[in-house]
């Protein structure tokens, strides 16, 4: 976290422009900021949750719909004590070569379990939350899926949330 690292370039530059040109109106743009919420307790006592758009789901649950032209607006609960062997990925819109060898590169469930055991965080919510990042109706996405996951995160009494938009 040094000043010079601010120069770091993203590996695939111009991603927003590319996606927005190909799928006009699919990208979310905001001009206002949400006021920060703050931790009410030390991190070492806080219950952490994880929200991912990588399409990771417990084996045997209804696969995410990668065929639908307008996207999938559902989510899955992934028990936070799952092992990677019990999970699978249903998503084709991001490179999954690394994840297929070690799921932790996109869904670091084992690392999060270790942080809880080590006491860096107070604990994990019973479930993590997973969906696929392919929705051609951003308004519907914000109205339904985003709110449903936010409510589920509250229901699991999370004190903090780590998110990973794949």
């Amino acid at each position, binding site marked *: *976290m040094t000043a010079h690292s601010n120069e770091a370039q993203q590996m695939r530059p111009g991603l927003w422009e590319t996606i927005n040109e190909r799928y006009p109106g699919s990208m979310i743009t905001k001009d206002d900021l949400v006021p920060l919420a703050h931790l009410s307790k030390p991190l070492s006592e806080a219950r952490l949750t994880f929200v991912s758009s990588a399409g990771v789901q417990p084996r045997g649950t209804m696969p995410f719909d990668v065929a639908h032209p307008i996207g999938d607006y559902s989510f899955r609960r992934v028990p936070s004590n799952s092992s990677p062997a019990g999970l699978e990925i249903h998503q084709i819109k991001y*490179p999954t070569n690394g994840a297929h060898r070690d799921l*932790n590169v996109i869904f*670091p469930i084992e690392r999060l379990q270790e942080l809880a055991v080590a006491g860096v965080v107070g604990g994990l919510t019973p479930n993590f939350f997973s969906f696929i990042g392919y929705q051609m109706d951003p308004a519907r996405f914000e109205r339904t899926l985003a709110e449903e996951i936010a409510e589920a995160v509250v229901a699991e009494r999370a004190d903090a949330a780590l998110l990973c938009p794949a």
Partner: protein
Amino acid sequence: MQRAIERKGIPTVSITVARDVTQHCQPPRALFVPFMMGHHFGVPFHRELQQRIILAALDHLVMARRSGEIETIPVTWAQARREGKAIEQAIGQRD
């Protein structure tokens, strides 16, 4: 999504490999990593790096004072790949 959770009073932080996309959605806190898409926490079997990315994000979650700030971390994809390869050789995941 992230904004919806933060609005419910739960502090959030996201990990992004697309700084430009993140700048458009304006989440309250984000950590940018210059990694390949789909590899936000680094490379396979590199536990220490995966852990370090999470810890940097959690650090930003605790320390951020201004909404919309995108934090960075001094890592490079080339170095992550090099280290990942060495780790895989050591544990016999690669010939």
